[in-house]
C-alpha cells in the first residue's frame, strides 16, 4: 500500500478511487438490482490481473511481448481440461481425473504457463525489440493454431465446462465469484509491487532502462528477463483460468493475437509503469465496451480511435493524464 500513497497525491487519489470503484461498485450494483454489473466488474478484475501480469514483463522489464495471449489461453484450457476430466471421470494424468477446485485450476494454469514460457522465453529473449515482439506473436499463433487443430479438447469449438468450486464460497453465484477474482487481482498487484521494490525488480528495471550499464556492473540481463517473462506468464495464466471459469468456456479466441494486443492496450491505456495502470486500463476498456457497445455495433471503431488518441497524444495513459508529469522511477 505504501506506493499507493508515495505516488503523487493526485495519482494516489486516483488509485484509491479505482480500488473503491472495484470493491464497492459490484456490491452497490447488486443491491440496486443490477447483477449484470457484477459480471462486468468480474471481467474487469480478471483482465486487470492479466494485464498486471504482462506489466511485469512489459512495464518492469521492457519486454514487449505480443504473445501473452498464449499464456492466457493456456490458463483457460488448463481450467477447462481439469474440469472436463473431473466431469467425465476419465483419467488425465497418472490416474488423476482432474478437479473442479478453482484453486487447483489456477495452480495448473500457472504450471502450464510456466512450461510454455520457459522455452518460448529462452528462444525469444535471444533477440530484443521488434524481433522479440514478432517472435512472441508467432509462438502464440502457433499455440493458437495447435488448439484449433487438436481435436481432443474441442478444437475450434473450444471447451465448455461447469464453473469450478471454491472452499467456503458459492462460486456459481456472481458476487462470490467476483470476490475470488478481486482477491486474485489484489494478490497479483501485491506481487507486482513486492517484486518491483526488491533487488530483482531493481535489476530488472535497470535492464529496461540501460542494459549496457547492467552488464557493465556484472549482471546478466538474460536470467532476469527470463525470470520476469516466466513470472509474468504465470500470472497471466492464472487470469486465464479465472476468465474461463467466468465464461464457463475455454475459447480458442483467448489464444488469439487480438487478445495479446488487448493486454498491451490495457496497460498503455491505463498508464505504463504505474502499479494500477493496467487495472485502470481494464476498467476503462470494460466500461467503453459496455457503453460504446450499447450505443453502436461498431464500437471497436471508436475504441480504435480512442486508443489511437492515447498512443499519439496521451503518452502516460489515463493515470498519466490524471497524475500529470512523469511516472516515478
Amino acid at each position, binding site marked *: 500500500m505504501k506506493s499507493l500513497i508515495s505516488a503523487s497525491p493526485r495519482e494516489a487519489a486516483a488509485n484509491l478511487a479505482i480500488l473503491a470503484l472495484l470493491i464497492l461498485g459490484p456490491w452497490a450494483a447488486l443491491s440496486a438490482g443490477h447483477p449484470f454489473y457484477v459480471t462486468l466488474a468480474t471481467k474487469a478484475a480478471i483482465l486487470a490481473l492479466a494485464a498486471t501480469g504482462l506489466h511485469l514483463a512489459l512495464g518492469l522489464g521492457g519486454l514487449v511481448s505480443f504473445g501473452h495471449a498464449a499464456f492466457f489461453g493456456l490458463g483457460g484450457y488448463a481450467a477447462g481440461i481439469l474440469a472436463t476430466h473431473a466431469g467425465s471421470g476419465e483419467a488425465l494424468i497418472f490416474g488423476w481425473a482432474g478437479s473442479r477446485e478453482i484453486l487447483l485450476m489456477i495452480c495448473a494454469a500457472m504450471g502450464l504457463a510456466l512450461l510454455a514460457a520457459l522455452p518460448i522465453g529462452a528462444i525469444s529473449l535471444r533477440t530484443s525489440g521488434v524481433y522479440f515482439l514478432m517472435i512472441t506473436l508467432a509462438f502464440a499463433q502457433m499455440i493458437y493454431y495447435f488448439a484449433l487443430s487438436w481435436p481432443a479438447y474441442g478444437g475450434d469449438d473450444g471447451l465448455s465446462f461447469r464453473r469450478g468450486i471454491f472452499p467456503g464460497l458459492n462460486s456459481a453465484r456472481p458476487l462470490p465469484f467476483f470476490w475470488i477474482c478481486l482477491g486474485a487481482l489484489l494478490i497479483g498487484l501485491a506481487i507486482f509491487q513486492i517484486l518491483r521494490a526488491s533487488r530483482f525488480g531493481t535489476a530488472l528495471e535497470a535492464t529496461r532502462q540501460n542494459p549496457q*550499464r547492467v552488464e557493465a556492473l556484472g549482471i546478466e540481463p538474460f536470467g532476469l528477463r527470463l525470470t520476469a517473462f516466466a513470472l509474468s506468464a504465470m500470472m497471466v495464466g492464472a487470469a486465464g483460468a479465472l476468465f474461463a471459469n467466468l465464461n464457463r468456456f475455454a475459447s480458442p479466441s483467448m489464444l488469439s493475437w487480438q487478445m495479446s494486443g488487448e493486454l498491451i492496450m490495457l496497460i498503455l491505456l491505463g498508464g505504463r509503469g504505474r502499479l494500477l495502470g493496467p487495472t485502470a486500463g481494464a476498467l476503462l476498456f470494460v466500461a467503453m465496451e459496455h457503453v460504446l457497445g450499447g450505443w453502436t455495433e461498431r464500437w471497436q471503431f471508436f475504441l480504435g480511435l480512442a486508443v489511437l488518441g492515447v498512443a499519439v497524444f496521451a503518452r502516460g495513459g489515463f493515470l498519466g493524464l490524471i497524475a500529470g508529469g512523469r511516472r516515478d522511477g
Partner: protein
Amino acid sequence: MADPALDIRDLRKSFGALRATDGVTLDLRPGEIHALIGPNGAGKSTLIAQIAGGLRPDSGSVRLFGRDVTALGAPARARLGLARSFQISSLAGEFSALRNVMLAIQARAGSSFRFLRPTQGDRRLTEPAMAALARVGLADRAAVPAALLSHGERRRLELALALAMEPKLFLLDEPMAGLGAEGSRELTGFLSELRREAPILLVEHDMDAVFALADRISVLEAGRVIASGSPAEIRADAGARRAYLGDSS
C-alpha cells in the same frame, strides 16, 4: 612479478574493410595509470568495447589478472573486477542517484535474484551506496533521478558506480569529457588518489590531465599503437605529436 592487471595481445577487429583495431598490444600493471590517447576515429571506442567485453575481437587475446577472458562477456569481466565508466553517461535514468549506486552494490554482492525484501531502507545497500556518493560529492543529490542530474553530476555518478563495484581495475572512458577546467582539475586530483585502490586504464582527450596523471601513455592511431612510453618519451615522439596535435583538444 605479479601478472599485469590487464594484458592485451595483438588484438584485431575489422568492420568490413575498416581495420578498427589493427594488432594492438598493451598492458596495465598494478598500481599504475596507463593513459590511452589518440585522435577521434583512432579506434579507442572499439578497443574499449573489446576490453570491457561488449565486442568480440576477430583475433588476439585479452587477459585480466592473468586469466584469458577473450571469450567472456561484459558481465563476467565485471565480476572478475573490471569496472568501466562510459564516455557518454550511461545510467538508469529513472532511478535516483542513490538507487543507481545501490544497483552496483547488489551487483557486486551477486544478489539480484532476491524477490521479497524491498531495497529501499536496506542498509546493506544504502550505506555503502551513500559512502560511494559521498566520495564523489553527490551525497546531497542522492534522491534526484539520474536523468535530472547535470552533466557534471552524471559524470560523477558514473564514477560512483565504478567505485561501488570495488573493482581491481578501472577502465575510464573520457571521464573529463565536458567537465570544464575546474571540474577536470578536481577529477585529476581524485584520480591520482584512486590509483592506490586499483590501476586505471584512462582514455582521455584532456592532455593536461593525461600528462599530470599517467605513468605510461600509449598513442593510438588508425587502430594501432604508434607510440608507448613515459609522458616524457611521448612528449618527445614525433609521431605521437602529429597524432594528437591534429586533434583540437
